[in-house]
């Protein structure tokens, strides 16, 4: 038959964590030389808060990308959900749960719409979600001329500012969500089907997978994560902010985090664990540059380089694997 060595499938933890380790180590050193300190309480907390915001979005983005799709509307979904949440709560703890429910409902609805455009609408995800993004932008621009509503104090105190030691509650929540997604991918039919659809839609279809249903679900989950990010941001900002998502560049940065995390843009390979690593890496760079008080433009450049370099490394690996 064949003399190929058939080691069982290993799903190794992506190299992003190595990169993360190195970056933080070097960063710590440089900052130390600069006379600062990278891992003091406040810096760590800030780092993890920044990570949490991007993290929710990126984890969701991972799901759609794994499924061979893409979501460029997340930034606007984030903004919208901060507003929905804050306006519904309107400062009262009583309205907390209904508000969260409504927010998730709205974002899920948008995800559904994205999903339907991509599947039954047969529009390329890139264009479809770009278009939906524009729709939302128009709504936000015409309806809001600034922050609106106010977040329930209870939420601000807990999700917004509560922390366990140096670890914010929000980051723990992120870990929980990421964990849930990991579980979803490795332990549920949906997960297996999603990866199959991303790997090769035709194969999935012929194996009896309902591709459309799977893709739509992925989009719904992605938007839900974006909605979650919105709720978190509302808890941080104390009100709804119509521009927070776009200012945060959550659309492109989430995709960046995902690919840095080793998920194939083509779909079918990767996972949320790597994405969390990617998010932490980006946040780590933020923190380091803050400590060194280097202006953001240099950071942009570094980010760009890192994104390309990371993916180049993964490509090398994939190539070597193919050779074997």
């Amino acid at each position, binding site marked *: 038959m064949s003399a190929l060595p058939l080691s069982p499938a290993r799903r190794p933890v992506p190299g992003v964590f190595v990169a993360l380790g190195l970056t933080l180590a070097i960063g710590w050193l440089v900052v130390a030389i600069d006379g600062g300190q990278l891992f003091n309480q406040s810096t760590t907390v800030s780092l993890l808060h920044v990570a949490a915001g991007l993290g929710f979005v990126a984890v969701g983005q991972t799901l759609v990308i794994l499924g061979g799709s893409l979501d460029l509307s997340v930034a606007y979904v984030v903004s919208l959900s901060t507003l929905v949440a804050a306006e519904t709560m309107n400062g009262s703890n009583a309205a907390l749960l209904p508000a969260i429910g409504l927010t998730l409902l709205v974002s899920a609805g948008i995800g559904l719409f994205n999903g339907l455009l991509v599947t039954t609408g047969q529009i390329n995800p890139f264009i479809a979600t770009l278009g939906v993004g524009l729709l939302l932008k128009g709504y936000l*621009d015409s309806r809001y001329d600034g922050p609106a509503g106010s977040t329930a104090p209870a939420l601000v105190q807990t999700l917004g500012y509560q922390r366990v030691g140096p670890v914010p509650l929000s980051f723990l929540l992120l870990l929980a969500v990421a964990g849930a997604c990991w579980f979803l991918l490795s332990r549920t039919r949906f997960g297996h089907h999603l990866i199959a659809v991303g790997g090769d839609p035709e194969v999935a279809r012929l194996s009896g997978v309902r591709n459309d249903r799977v893709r739509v679900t992925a989009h719904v989950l992605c938007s839900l994560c974006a909605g979650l990010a919105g709720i978190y941001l509302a808890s941080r900002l104390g009100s709804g902010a119509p521009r927070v998502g776009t200012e945060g560049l959550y659309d492109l940065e989430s995709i960046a985090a995902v690919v840095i995390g080793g998920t194939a843009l083509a779909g079918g390979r990767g996972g949320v664990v790597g994405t969390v690593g990617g998010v932490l890496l980006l946040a780590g760079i933020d923190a380091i540059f803050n400590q060194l008080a280097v202006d953001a433009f240099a950071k942009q450049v570094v980010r760009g380089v890192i994104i390309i370099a990371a993916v180049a490394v993964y490509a090398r690996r994939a190539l070597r694997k193919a050779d074997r």
Partner: protein
Amino acid sequence: MTTQTVSRRLAPLRRWNSGGILPILAVLVVLLVLVAARQPDFLSPPSLMSFLGRSAPIILLAAGQYFVIVSGEFDLSVGSLVTAQVVVAARLIDSDPSRTWPVVLVLLAGGALVGLVNGLITTRLRVPSFVTTLGMFLILVGAVYLWSDGAPKGGLTDQFRQLGRRAVEDVPVFGRLPYALLVLLVLAVAAVLLMRSDFGRTLVAVGDNPRTAQLSGVRVWRTRTIAFVLSGLAAAVAAILIGGYGGVSFQAGAGLEFGAITAVVLGGVALGGGRGSVVGAMLGALTLELLFALMNFYGVSGALRPSVQGAIILLAVAVSARRFSSR
């Protein structure tokens, strides 16, 4: 993660948009009718010419983007490239007329160089172009801000600006012919000829099935890299025209990459490659520009515009998708 797999992922999407330019023509006609209804004199030669002139840059960007997309790739860096070029031009020229033309050459070279880098990273390092050019986008933005520490410096000369701003006046029939329009016409013809040439056909073949192309002796990496270089050059010309038309600003190129890609898709070109015509792509861009003008004429609330734009894009693409997926 090779570009192949990306195209393979987009492969099913390909089937959805066939290459025909009929749908985009239809949309264009509809919009023209709507304009004529509201603003008849818009169709009078002089104003029409000015409109085409001011639309030239985005049309050129769409053409450049087309080369990349039809070969199975993406170029998200063009917007930031335009910004960078405009700012660089201002600082290099620094209001000194004698430097105008040298700087124009520098810009063209710069555009080609960025395209080359994009292409080589994508083809040689096997980084999906979406990621490559996203990275390049961040790098260019950051670099240009760094270089000009945050605020554009220097200034553009009238010689530089006239290309994008002025026109040949008192032309019979047309009234006036903006230089930008002339540039556009020349380059558009060149683009069409290029796509009919061996290179053009090969480019499409590469986007359709790189493997076959390679086994037929095509240097796939080289072909795609050239596509990126062309896109970079198009961005450079666009930058010259935009800088001329609007002057220096960090906003000069903001969002143009998405505009260009949208235009190309509207024009019936399939993301993933191997399908669609450069004419369609350019018509797509023209349609977008016309749509903006239309919204000015109809007084669509500035804040609502993105929605209208989004809805129309989704509609047009969905319908052409439907039309061609009937098999």
